[in-house]
C-alpha cells in the first residue's frame, strides 16, 4: 500500500482517494478511487462498463461476476484497493472484435438468456467453468453455476447452453 502515497496528488490524498494501476479487458488503467469502493461501482461508474450488474450487493446472486487474474469473483465484494496490479476481465471483454464467444452464441441459440440481467454474470461463470473443466458433467455444471441466480429460466436452458458451447 505504501506505493500509492507517492503517486497520489496532495488533493487526492486529502479526499482519501488512491491511485490504482490495473488491467481491464487487456487495457492498462489508472483508477482514482476510495480504497474501500466496490470494484463493481468503479467498473460501472468510472469505466462505464455497465455489463457487470448488481443483483444483491452481498455476493449471493453472481450478477456482478468478473474475472480477477482469471479467477471468478463477485465484484460487489471486492474493495478496489485489492486490485492493484491485477488483470480484470468483464463481460465486455468476452466477445472480441464483435465476434461472440462460443458461450455467448450458445446462450442465444439455446434460450439461455431471458430478461438478461443475470446473463453477463452467468456467461462469465460458464466461461470460467469451462476453463477449469472443459467437458463438465451435469453435476459439474450445476455446481459451477450454483453461485449465479437466475429467476427466469429455471436454469434448464442455461445448462443446455453450456453443453452446446462445449460441443464447439
Amino acid at each position, binding site marked *: 500500500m505504501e506505493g500509492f502515497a507517492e503517486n497520489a496528488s496532495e488533493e487526492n490524498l486529502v479526499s482519501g482517494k488512491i491511485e490504482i494501476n490495473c488491467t481491464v479487458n487487456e487495457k492498462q488503467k489508472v483508477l482514482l478511487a476510495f480504497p474501500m469502493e466496490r470494484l463493481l461501482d468503479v467498473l460501472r461508474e468510472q469505466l462505464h462498463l455497465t455489463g457487470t450488474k448488481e443483483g444483491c450487493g452481498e455476493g449471493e446472486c453472481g450478477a456482478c461476476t468478473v474475472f480477477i487474474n482469471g479467477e471468478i469473483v463477485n465484484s460487489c465484494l471486492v474493495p478496489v484497493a485489492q486490485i492493484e496490479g491485477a488483470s480484470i476481465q468483464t463481460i465486455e471483454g468476452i466477445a472480441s472484435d464483435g465476434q461472440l464467444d462460443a458461450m455467448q452464441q450458445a446462450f442465444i441459440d439455446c434460450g439461455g438468456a431471458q430478461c*438478461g440481467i443475470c446473463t453477463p454474470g452467468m456467461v462469465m461463470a460458464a466461461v470460467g467453468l469451462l476453463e477449469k473443466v472443459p467437458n463438465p458433467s451435469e453435476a459439474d455444471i450445476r455446481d459451477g453455476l450454483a453461485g449465479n441466480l437466475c429467476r427466469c429460466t429455471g436454469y434448464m436452458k442455461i445448462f443446455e447452453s453450456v453443453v452446446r458451447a462445449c460441443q464447439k
Partner: protein
Amino acid sequence: MSIVGKPVPRKEGRRKVTGQALYVDDLNFPGMLHGVTVRSSIPRGRIKNISFEGDIPWNEFTIVTAKDIPGENYVALILNDQPYLADEVVNHPEEPIVLLAHHDKYLLEEARRHVRIEYEELPGILSLEESLDNREIIWGDDNVFKKFLVDKGNVDDAWSKADFVVEGEYRTGAQEQLYIESNGAIAVANAEDGVSVWGSMQCPYYVHKALIWLFGLPEEKIRVIQTETGGGFGGKEEYPSMIAGHAALLAWKSGKPVKMIYDRAEDMVATTKRHPSRTRHKTAVTKDGKLLAMEINFVIDGGAYCTLSPVVLSRGTIHAAGPYFCPNVRIHSRAVATNLPPHGAFRGFGAPQSIFALERHMNKVAKAIGLTPEEFRRRNFIHEGQTTATSQVIREKIDMNGLLNRAFEVSDYRAKRERFARENADRDSSPTPGSPAGQPGWCRAAREGVNQAGSRIKKGIGFASFMHGAGFTGSGEVFLQSVVGAEATREGQVKVLAASTEIGQGTNTIFAQIAAEALGLDYDLVEITQPDTSNVPNSGPTVASRTCMIVGKLVESAVLGLKQPLVSSGLLPEQFTQTDFQRACSEYIEKFGQLKSFSKYDPPPNIHWDDEKYQGDAYGAFAWAVYVAEVSVDMLTYEAHVDDFVAVQEVGRVINPVLAAGQIEGGVAQAIGFTLYENVVWENGRMLNSQMTNYIMPTAADIPPIRVYFEENPYAYGPAGAKGIGELPMDGPAPAILNAIENAVGVGFDHIPLMPEAMMERSVA
C-alpha cells in the same frame, strides 16, 4: 416458409449476452442526482413530527414530503387509496414518508439515517385472521377491500344428497417476485416540458396514468419510456408507478434529473409480494365419485392499501373450482386489509393460491371416498359443452384425460408410485432407519433413484391438474380497448408499435414472428419499437398471460392492415413476395408520406360476462395442464427435494418452442421456490429476511430436470392459433409437490411454503 413454431433467436439476445443491453441503472444524465426514500418504521400510527438531524448539510439536499405534491397524493390505479407519501398517518411498515435527493450517493445514505420521524402508534392488524375478526377497523367499515360471490346451481340442497362430505383448509404464504434487477427509475421534470420517466416496468401506461394525477398535468406532458427490464413476474406491474412518481417529485423540485434505484433489501421489504391466502373447501361427492357440490371460501391478505387486490381476488376466485365439472358451486371470496405493505401482482395472480387449495383438496376427497387421485379426477374432468363455476360453456376442444395420460406416461407415474411404496415400506422395516444413504449429498442418491433399505430417504410422486385463463378477466379486455400499431419504412421494414414490454418472456421475438408470419416476411425485417408512451399506442399492461394471445392478435391484424392500402393503391398484388412488399412500401411512402396501421381489440364472438352476478365467459380461452412431481424427503433433516418434474400442457399453437419451454421451466422453478424454499418471515408487519442470503430462491443445484411437453390445439381467435402461457406454470407445481410429499411420507400437508420445521413438528418419521 412458416416462421411460427420455429425456435428463432431472441430479438435482443445479442445485446443481452454481450452486456450491451441498457437497464435503467446503466443510464446516466448530466447533472443527475440520486434519490432515496425515508420510510415508516411502524405498522400503523400518526406522524407527530419529522426532524432533520445530525451533522448533515441539509441545505444541499432536495427534500420532498406530501406537502410538495403538485397534484393528487395517490397512486391512480383502482381505488386510489394509496398515497405517494404518507401524510399524517402511516398504515404499514416501510411506507414512504420523505424523499431526499443529492448528487453524492454516500452522503445521501448517511442523510437518510438522520431523518427522525416520531409517531403516535396505533394498534395494527398483522394477519388475515385479525382482519377478518375486525379486531381493529383499518379500512372501510369491515376491512374488506372486495368480495365476490360465484353461485352456480344450488349448493344448499346438495349436502343431503351426498354420500360423502369432505372439508379442508389450505394456506399459502407471501412470495417475493425476486426479479434480479431491482426496481428503479430516472425522471426529468419541469413545468415547461412536463415529466419524463425512464424505468424498469411492465406497464408504461399505468405509470403514465399515475403521473398525470400526481402532477395534475395533461397526458401529452407525461412521457414514460421502458428501459430493458430485468424480470418482472408481476412485481413491476403496479410498483413502478410509485418509484417513478417519487423520482419525478424529486426531479420536479430540484430541477435536475433524479435516479432512484432500490438496493435488494429495500426492494424486498418495501415492494409488493404475492398475497398470502386461506382457502376452505367443503365438497359433496356421490359414492361413485361424482362431484355434487363445492363450497369454497377464499380469503387473501391485501396489505394496507387496495392496489390490485380486487383483480387478484377475481382471478383466484374464478380458478378456485379448477378444470372440473360440478353442477353446484358456491365460491365466496374476500380480499382483506392488514397493516402489511400492500401485496400485489405476481405471476398467476391469485390462481396459484386457490389452485393449490383445490388440488390438495381433490387428493383429500379421493382418499376419503377410496379412489385414486387420478380416478377421482377422471370422473370429474370438464368436457367440451360443460360449464365452469361461472357457468362458462367450454367451447374449445379439451382433453384433460389425454393430458393426464401423457403426463403419467412420460413421468412413469404408475410404476414409480408402486416402486416407491415398496421401497418406502422396506425402509420402514429396515433395522437401521435413519442412517445416511452413504452419500453426503442425499439428493444425488435421490436423483439416481437410489432408495435402498436403510436409506434415510423416502420417495414419492404426485400430480396436479389445472387450467389458467388467458387475458383480462370477464369484461376486462373490453374496457381496456387495447390498440397496436404497425408502420412500414421506406426500406420495407415493418415496425410494431405497442406498449407491451419485453421483460424476459419474449415479447419482442414472438411479436416479430407473428408479424413476419402474417405478411410472409423474413423475421429480421420486423422491428419492435421500444415502448415509449410518446411513440406507441396503449396496447394495455403486460400482465395476465395476455401479451401473446390478446396483443399478439392485434399485432397480426395491425400488420395485415399495412397490406390493404398497398393493394388498393395498386402497388401490391394480392399474392406477393417479400421483394414486392418492400418495393410497394417504398413507392407508397414516396407518394403518400407514411404507411401506418392500427388495430383495436374486438372481443371474439359469443363472449358474455355479467359483472354483477359474476357469471359468464370469464376468459376467451384457457390453457390446460397436468404436472407431475417426484420428490424425496430426507427423514433425518426433513428436507424435501424435487427430483424430477414433468409439465404437460395445451396452450394452443406454440409460437416459439424454445421461448415457450423457457416460460414453463422458469415458472416451475419459481413455483418450486414458492412451495419449498421461499419463506417470508414477518415481524410486526415487516419482512425480516430481506436478503438473498436468508430469503432462499432455488439455485442451479436445487432444480430438478424440468421436462416440458406441449399438446397443440390451435385457438381460433389467437394469433396463428396461440393462447396465453406465462402464468400457467406457477399454478400446478405446489400442489403436485405436496401431493408427492404425502405419497412419500404418508402425511398430508396443507400449507406452503412447507419448511423442514413444519414436517418435523408433525414427526412424519
